[in-house]
């Protein structure tokens, strides 16, 4: 197969396209940071980017940062503050336009699990019990999911990751769907897209159930449905997503200078 880029690169570009110039944006570490800095390098030079630790004005040097406060991102920042500033004053407050988070498991209402994998069908039950496999916990993603005006979920498209219902809600999507977020008092607007290695899902405006909105040149509706753990509906107007332009791919590869997205 002669793809123009890897699946991960396509996912990063599709995510970056969701970010608009001038927005106040927060990126996590890893792939989501590359997606964000790609957007800044390509079509959103005025994006006001920050990290969870309160690092402002930086673009990474020397490749993918090891972490949010790491030296690769500290080397050319204009301001360092704190977690309460970035995640609290600027995100949980409702000021942040867009965040990008990852997921180990996501469900049809965009709820995200990054906490653990449980046996017995992934059902924890009414008593807390430790996971069979412990993952990373919520980190700042819960704060982004709770407070940002909208957020984008980036996730590898595999059946085990796309569940009817996540085992554990680490970061809230639309909860039980409909107006549940409002009823529970969450300030932010919820997930606007799930961008995957196979395509893009977006929520139905009423039910908030995620539907297939687009596929890549190298994927298909059938492929995506087979890799989704619920009976995925197709949105009206769903279509193939444009391939990366030469300029997009060049910008992404400048940001991802160590090729982290080209490893698989």
């Amino acid at each position: 197969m002669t793809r123009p880029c890897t699946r991960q690169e396509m996912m990063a570009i599709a995510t970056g396209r969701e970010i608009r110039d001038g927005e106040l944006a927060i990126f996590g570490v890893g792939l989501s940071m590359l997606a964000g800095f790609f957007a800044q390098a390509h079509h959103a030079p005025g994006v006001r980017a920050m990290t969870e630790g309160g690092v402002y004005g930086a673009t990474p040097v020397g490749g993918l940062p090891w972490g949010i406060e790491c030296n690769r991102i500290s080397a050319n920042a204009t301001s360092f503050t704190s977690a309460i500033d970035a995640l609290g004053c600027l995100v949980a407050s409702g000021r942040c336009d867009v965040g990008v988070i990852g997921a180990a498991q996501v469900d049809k209402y965009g709820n995200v699990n990054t906490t653990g994998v449980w046996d017995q069908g992934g059902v924890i039950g009414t008593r807390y019990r430790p996971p069979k496999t412990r993952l990373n916990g919520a980190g700042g993603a819960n704060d982004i999911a709770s407070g940002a005006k909208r957020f984008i979920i980036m996730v590898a498209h595999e059946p085990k990751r796309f569940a009817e219902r996540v085992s554990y809600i680490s970061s809230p999507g639309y909860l039980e769907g409909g107006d549940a977020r409002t009823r529970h008092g969450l300030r932010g607007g919820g997930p606007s897209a799930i961008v995957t290695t196979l395509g893009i899902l977006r929520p139905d405006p009423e039910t908030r159930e995620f539907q297939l909105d687009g596929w890549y040149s190298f994927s298909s509706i059938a492929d995506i449905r087979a890799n989704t753990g619920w009976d995925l509906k197709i949105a009206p107007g769903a279509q193939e997503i444009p391939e990366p332009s030469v300029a997009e791919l060049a910008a992404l590869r400048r940001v991802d200078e160590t090729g982290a997205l080209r490893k698989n």
Partner: protein
Amino acid sequence: MPPGKLISLAEAVGRTSWDGMQYASGAALPVGSDAIVFGRELLRQGRKDLHAIFHCNSQQLNLLAAAGAVSRAECGFSGLEVFGFANGLRRAVESGRLALEDYSNLSMALRLLGGALGWPFVPATVNIASDIQARSAFAPDDYPSRSKIPTVTDPFSGREIGALPPLVPDLAAIHVSLADPLGNAIMLGTEWSRFELSRAAKRVVLIADAIVDTACMRQYPNLVRIPDLVVEAVVWWPFAAWPQSSPGLYDVDEEHMKLMNLALATEDGTAAYLRDYVESYSDIDTYLDLIGRDKVASLSQGPTSFLLDPYRQWILPAEALS
């Protein structure tokens, strides 16, 4: 001018720690500015049954958990960023040896702020409507939990939000870039929640990569975010966060980060790591030998070295600190 509050690492651990204590550290993100050398010394002195308060997991919590020294922990993120899952911590959690209470990165910081301000609770617009609120590892039968993040009614609107429990750790071991012998400290890089932690904890020990003359603090008082009056003791220990980074002073040691996390994935690996990297040095010199003098030199030449330049003139040499 030294010693002031300067004491040895062994003395600091001996004087301020005990089995079963609420021990707070980390307090920066997982790969930087973590007072891990204090955690190594906790293990050298055999501390156990710790209740760990780490804003995020770090290699320190990963190590303490792998070594079986932690029975309860609270944190907002339990991974190692791009270095993957924290194998030592996850083994302890999965086996049930360690009860890990989950919060988010904002709520951990707000809980420290609440402790610092002496508030009975902290308003929460995050963590609500998630399993972080509904499930408690410390109170497993309380489901949906009403004790961990209960609701509180806003008297202005009549609507409910969450209430976070404040944190007041027994001890905070805080990594800082620069401290003076009186206990004034400068952090380079994000504070993360070290400011709040330094006011929330009952006792504060600073672990500083370098010691500077107080004249440095008088030149840059706005950088002194931890003033001496909240600090009990200062420990000088170069490369105190190794293998993690300290912006301005040294980079992440990628090789050792991977080696360490791999070792902590098994009991045997952990025993070997403890033998080789915890019990094996006797002082700062042998510690730096362990890292490797070449590596010490190369990690010191990172892209953020320029951040240290304004302060180099005030750094006190090793001879002045004994």
